[in-house]
């Protein structure tokens, strides 16, 4: 059975459409990253999947349970790691886990065993007796993760999980996600606005202004872009539009003007560069050739930069 299915999902806040006709299917045990700039609708989808928000139209289901009709079944199936902390700071790590377990109906020996083994699994074995207010940001994050996994959910929903983490802690988190996926058959679903985080996913769903603009593996997404990406900075800061038009006229290419920078895709990027400088002497301040990144994929799909997509 598919882990997550949404069909024609739409969510509106007043006039604004936070999600628009979103349909996607996440298979069991694949790591899917929901990539989008702030304001693209990621958090709205997260709220729908965690049963906190009823969609305006369409439907969403987790392991076959509809989020509106069977919220309790959905809540039992999902583990949730919120973007904002959800720990009780006056309680110890073990107490936080204990209370969490009881809310999920665990009790007795099974619960005690789980509370004992989990801190070790996330690398907190020595800190179980400490109040969470005394832990560092990275360690708190591990407690959050332990909380989310406590009742052995089949689907783990993580909202911007590595927001406040340093690179080392981020690596640990991803290693751990891979492990629980393999060992426990958990399906992690991660929202993120970080490109390098999205790269680690099996498949990436790219969200822009509430719409799903692509859903594929990172490699497949990048191979949609032919060859290499050239970025050209004009000498005249306001000259990108003119340079863009001139390049289009001179060579048979379709460059785009993105925030003062001319961007174009070529199979023979490196070989094309000298011709470009020769054709427009003095008008090019700098130019780079690179393998396409997810940022390029995003620009190619939406016509604007990742950061600029942030609205509201």
């Amino acid at each position: 059975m598919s882990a997550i299915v949404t069909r024609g999902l739409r969510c509106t806040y007043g006039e604004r459409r936070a999600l628009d006709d979103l349909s996607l299917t996440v298979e069991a045990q694949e790591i899917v990253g929901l990539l989008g700039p702030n304001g693209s609708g990621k958090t709205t989808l997260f709220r729908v999947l965690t049963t906190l928000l009823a969609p305006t139209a369409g439907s969403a289901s987790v392991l076959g349970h509809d989020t509106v009709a069977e919220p309790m079944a959905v809540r039992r199936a999902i583990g949730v790691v919120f973007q904002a902390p959800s720990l009780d700071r006056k309680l110890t790590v073990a107490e936080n886990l204990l209370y969490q377990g009881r809310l999920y109906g665990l009790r007795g020996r099974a619960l005690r065993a789980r509370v004992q083994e989990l801190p070790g699994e996330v690398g907190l074995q020595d800190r179980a007796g400490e109040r969470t207010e005394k832990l560092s940001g990275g360690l708190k994050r591990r407690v959050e993760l332990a909380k989310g996994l406590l009742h052995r959910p089949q689907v783990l929903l993580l909202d911007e999980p590595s927001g406040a983490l340093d690179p080392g802690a981020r690596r640990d988190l991803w290693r751990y996600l891979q492990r629980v996926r393999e060992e426990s058959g958990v399906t992690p679903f991660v929202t993120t606005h970080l490109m390098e985080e999205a790269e680690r996913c099996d498949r990436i769903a790219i969200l822009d202004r509430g719409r799903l603009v692509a859903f594929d593996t990172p490699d497949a997404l990048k191979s949609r872009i032919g060859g290499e990406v050239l970025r050209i900075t004009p000498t005249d800061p306001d000259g990108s539009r003119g340079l863009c038009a001139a390049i289009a006229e001179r060579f048979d290419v379709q460059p785009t003007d993105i925030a003062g920078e001319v961007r174009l895709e070529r199979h023979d990027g490196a070989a094309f560069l000298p011709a470009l400088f020769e054709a427009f002497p003095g008008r090019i301040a700098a130019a780079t050739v690179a393998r396409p990144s997810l940022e390029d994929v995003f620009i190619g799909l939406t016509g604007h930069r990742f950061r600029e997509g942030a609205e509201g």
Partner: protein
Amino acid sequence: MTAALTLAQRELVRFFRQPNRIVGAIGQPVLFWFLFGAAFKDSLRPPGVEQDYAQFFAPGVAAMIVLFTAIFSTISIIEDRREGFLQAVLVAPVPRSAIVLGKLLGGTLLAMLQALFFLTLVFATGKVPFGWEVVGPSLLILFLMGLALTGLGFCIAWRMDSTQGFHAIMSVFLLPMWLLSGSVFPVEGAATWLVWVMRLNPLTYGVEALRRALWLHGAPGDPAVLWGYTAITLLFALAMFAGATWIARKRQTVDLQ
């Protein structure tokens, strides 16, 4: 039920880890009791009863302790929302009514504990007879009053996003409600319009029931009146529980902060 008890237990553990809350909730009422009792010792004497002001004021102080505890424990809803703890509870497989019950039980148990501490002081003065026939009904009334006031606080706090907003409501609504409940001055002898306000105030019946349960009129009095007032307090508590559950069930954007 496990969920409700878990959440109630959390309230208690948190309370005892914040000693300043203990001082705040019980210190002020006890101070008021001593000061007002001494100040009005001979000048204020409720009509028709042989009791001094400290005796008259005692149930009012107990009600104040319950009210303050209710306020403190429902303000924590706003903090739980801000600190994020609440969001994890909202996505747990727990019905909203259990979340409400957990909060109400936690607040009520704390209120009873503190009121009991205060009543021990009152018993120590020797002005109130000590025995199960006094303590039993008093505890029941304190329990119902606690549920009612914590429920009321829950209804106010659930939609709020700042503790300042709650403080405003506390000053213009909750404290006047306590003032006009027969806690500070008796219903008899007030201006007619005020008498009506006090009779419509559901807290009045809890305070008066407690006063009767503590034999502060000098004798056990008519049991029908005591249990009638207790029943009104029970209705008050049930209405507040229902209201709090209704408010907590509505999905709304404020849940999502």
